Each structure stands twice: as structure tokens, then as C-alpha cells.
């Protein structure tokens, strides 16, 4: 199987600080790949390099065998800060990507309601982001990313700003949506539980500069739900293993 996304030896420095790498990862088609690591290890930088938002200092990234040299329409991003436009309604925010990519009007009229429905936003089309809760805002963010029908979805701690309950609910929602919209997902998180619940594989990054410390396969059958997964012995084994890895990394920093 050819990989959807290939990351080869990328590094990134900010001034004197080496933030990332060298880091190499392969993402399989339709895979849900979680990236976890101690804080400040360059998870977000890695994702921004994958998105083509910042060029790596060394190394290269390919999507479908094509080198990434800038943002690409088949790669969509969901941000921790939601990144909604406060002057646009929910409808216009969801339509944003389609409009900016110059899709035909008929397609926009067809796709926007579909993803508003899918993300449970019906009835909120004409609300502005500031009128919505954090969880609802991120639903808009996800709907906006899915609406452009991307092949790869990059998610940068999308639930990091949400409270624990909303977060769990959104995780299950994301799994439900991912079942119908099979995408290749790279999901950055700092939550071990979240990574196990969502991921097919988990990439553990080392402390700064982030390198791939280990890649774990999450052999828990789908469909998964938070309740059920947390009751499985395998969940606790994985959790323990991830804890050890992350603690070892945290100690390196100290």
C-alpha cells in the first residue's frame, strides 16, 4: 500500500531553538493517526509543516507522491482556536473553504447544508460564532474543513480548548463522522486517552526537538465508544505504555 502522506527527515528551528526533528512518519490512506508528545515538543509545528503553512528547514513532505510546497486544497485543517470568522454566520463560515476555492454555486448550496446537518448545527445556520458555545464553534470548524471534501484532515488539538464533558462528546461525534467520511486524519493531542480512543496508530514524539520516539498500533476494534474502550484491559495496557514513554521524555527535559 502506498502511503497517503510521507514525512521524511523534516527539521524546523526557530532562531536558536531547534523545535522539531529530524522527524519521519508515513500516514496510510484513511488512517487515523494520532500524534502525542510532551508539551513544547513541536507537535503543532509538525502539523503546520504538513499543512504547508511553514516550510521545513530540512527534509520533505509528500502527499500522494507530490511534494508539499504550500497549502493544498486536498488538505484541510481544524484549529485549536477554532479559527472561525466572527463576522460570518455559521453558514458562511462552513461555506468559506468552498467559496475561496472557487467551487460552483450549486455545489456550495448542496454541500454546506449537508455538513451543517452532519455536525448537528441545523437551526444555527444564521448565528454568529460568538453566539455559540465552544463545542458548537468547533463543530463549525470541523464542518468547514470537511465541506471542501479534503483527502487529508489535519487536526491541531481541536478539543483542547473544550471542557472535559464537551470534549468527550466531541470525540464520539468525530468518530461517528469519520465512519461516514473516511478521511486520512492526522490528529495532534496531548491527551493519552483521546489518542487511544481515536487513533489507529499513535506516534509518540520525544521532547524538544520532537523526533519520533515510538509508534504504537491501537488494536482496539471499531466502532469505539469512550465508555466501552475505557473498560478494556488493552486500553489500560496502552495507556500505561504511553505514560511510561511520556514520563521518560518529561524527565529528559528536567
Amino acid at each position, binding site marked *: 500500500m502506498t502511503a497517503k502522506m510521507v514525512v521524511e527527515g523534516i527539521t524546523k528551528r526557530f532562531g536558536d531553538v531547534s523545535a522539531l526533528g529530524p522527524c519521519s512518519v508515513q500516514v496510510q490512506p484513511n488512517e487515523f493517526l494520532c500524534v502525542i508528545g510532551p508539551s513544547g515538543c513541536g507537535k503543532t509545528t509538525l502539523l503546520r509543516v504538513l*499543512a504547508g*503553512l511553514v516550510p521545513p528547514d530540512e527534509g520533505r513532505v509528500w502527499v500522494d507522491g507530490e511534494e508539499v510546497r504550500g*497549502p*493544498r*486544497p486536498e488538505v*484541510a*485543517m481544524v*484549529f485549536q*482556536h477554532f*479559527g472561525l*470568522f*466572527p*463576522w460570518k454566520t455559521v453558514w458562511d463560515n462552513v461555506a*468559506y*473553504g468552498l467559496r*475561496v*476555492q472557487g467551487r460552483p454555486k450549486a455545489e456550495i448550496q448542496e454541500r454546506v447544508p449537508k455538513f451543517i446537518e452532519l455536525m448537528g448545527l441545523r437551526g444555527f445556520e444564521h448565528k*454568529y*460564532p*460568538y453566539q455559540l458555545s465552544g463545542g458548537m464553534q468547533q463543530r463549525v470548524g470541523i464542518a468547514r474543513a470537511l465541506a*471542501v471534501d479534503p483527502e487529508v484532515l489535519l487536526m491541531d488539538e481541536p478539543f483542547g480548548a473544550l471542557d472535559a464533558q464537551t470534549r468527550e462528546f466531541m470525540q464520539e461525534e468525530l468518530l461517528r463522522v469519520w465512519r461516514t467520511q473516511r478521511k486520512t486524519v492526522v490528529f495532534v493531542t496531548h491527551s493519552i486517552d483521546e489518542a487511544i480512543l481515536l487513533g489507529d496508530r499513535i506516534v509518540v514524539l520525544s521532547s524538544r526537538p520532537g523526533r519520533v520516539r515510538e509508534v504504537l498500533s491501537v488494536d482496539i476494534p471499531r466502532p469505539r465508544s469512550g465508555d466501552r474502550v475505557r473498560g478494556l484491559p488493552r486500553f489500560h495496557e496502552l495507556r500505561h505504555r504511553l505514560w511510561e514513554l511520556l514520563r521518560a521524555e518529561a524527565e529528559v527535559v528536567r
Partner: protein
Amino acid sequence: MRVAAAAPAQRRVPPRPRMTPAAIRWLSVAVGLGAWEAYGRLLASPIFTYPSAIARAAVALVQTGELQFYLQASLVVLSLGLLLAVAAGIPLGVAVARWPLLEHATDPYINALYATPTVALIPIIVLWLGFQTQAKVALVFLFCVFPILINTYQGVRSVDRRLLEVARAFCSTEWATWRDVILPSALPFILAGIRLAIGRGLVGMVVAEFYTSITGLGYMIVQYANTFRTDRLFVPIVVLMGMGVGLTGLLKRLERRIAPWMHVLREE
């Protein structure tokens, strides 16, 4: 109110006023006007006046059509000057924010002109442009353009970098980013600039009319001051006050309607 709520244990909490804030305001105005009226009637000085005399003078000036005539002249000057300031200030502010070369090249001029008291320029404007509408429009323009230009520049500059990155991630072209992100984000700043400009523009208009041609509300004021008609003198002043309050109030409401999210952020 907050102080009272924060100290519930204290016995002597100051009593909450029983009237609504609006009622207090109206009452305060009524008391002020009443006191002025009483004092003015008592004093009965030819160079002092009081509200009822001003009201009578206003009726007379409206009946002869004098007030309308001068008001119209003033409004033409104000709106032309403001319109030109908006038409020049916004594009210039955008351009200066967009191109660093232009920013650095124009910065000394903008700063120097903005810092110069604009009234100091009146004689030179009169010398160059004469005493007619042209000169007055130019003065109002000079009074108005800087707040608009500077606010536009600030608005463009203060756009959320994260939203710019969102636009980039969705492969937005630069032109589309200006349309979808930068200008909408700058709009509340631009409106606030126009609001400030109206206040300054009114000053510019009156001062220009003091010094230049023989029309407008400013001319009315000078004319009646010279002839000691204080009751008539106050009529254009009251009209100017009304214009200032009305126009800035209108802009504030417009800001709130166009950028409701700014309003919410401020309240938080």
C-alpha cells in the same frame, strides 16, 4: 452598584436610586435648563440669554429661513469634506498598511501633519484656495482625514494573525484574504475613525466659517456675537451640538450593527 453587592455584610449600604438612569439624565437636564432660565431672567443683561429666549430666536430664524440657509451651506461643506476624507483616508490607510515601503515613506508626513494643529493651516489654505466653499471643504478634509487614515491602518494591522493563517490553509489568494478577512476585521476600526472624524470635522467646519466666507453656521455665530444678539447666537450653537450628538450616535449604532461581535467582546 458593584460596591454595594460586594459588601453585603455592611449595615449601611447606600440605597439604590429609585429612578432609572434615563430619568436621572432627563431630570438633570430639566434642572439645569430651569436654573439657567431663572438666572438669565433675574440678570436681565443684554449680553446674557436664557433658554426660552433662545427658543424664540430659533423660531424667528427658522421662519425667515435664515437658519436653514446657513445650515445647508454648512452641511454641504461638512459632507463634502468628510466624503473626500473617507474616499482618500481608507484606501491610503489600506495601502500604507499593505506596503511597508509606502508606510515608511509616508510616516513622517502623516505624523507631522497629524501632530500640527490643523487650525494653524487655515491662513495658508485661505491664501491658496480663497474664501469660498473650496477652502472650507479642504479644511474639513484636513481635520477629518487623519483619524480615518490612522484607524484604517490600525484596523488592518490588528487583524488576527491566526485568521490569516486559516485563510492561507484554505488556499485563499491575497485578494480574497483582503476581502474575507482583513477588511471585515478592520471595518469596526474604520467606522470608529469616521466617528472621530465627524467630531473633528464639525470643529473644522465652524473654524473655517469663522475665518473664511460669509456663510454657514460659524458665520452666523460670529455675526450675532458682533451685534450682541446672544439669543440668536446660541441657535447655531445648539444646532451644532445636535449635529455632533446625532451624527456620532448614528455612527455608534452603525458600528454595533455592523460588528456585533466587537460589542460582545468589549462587554466580556
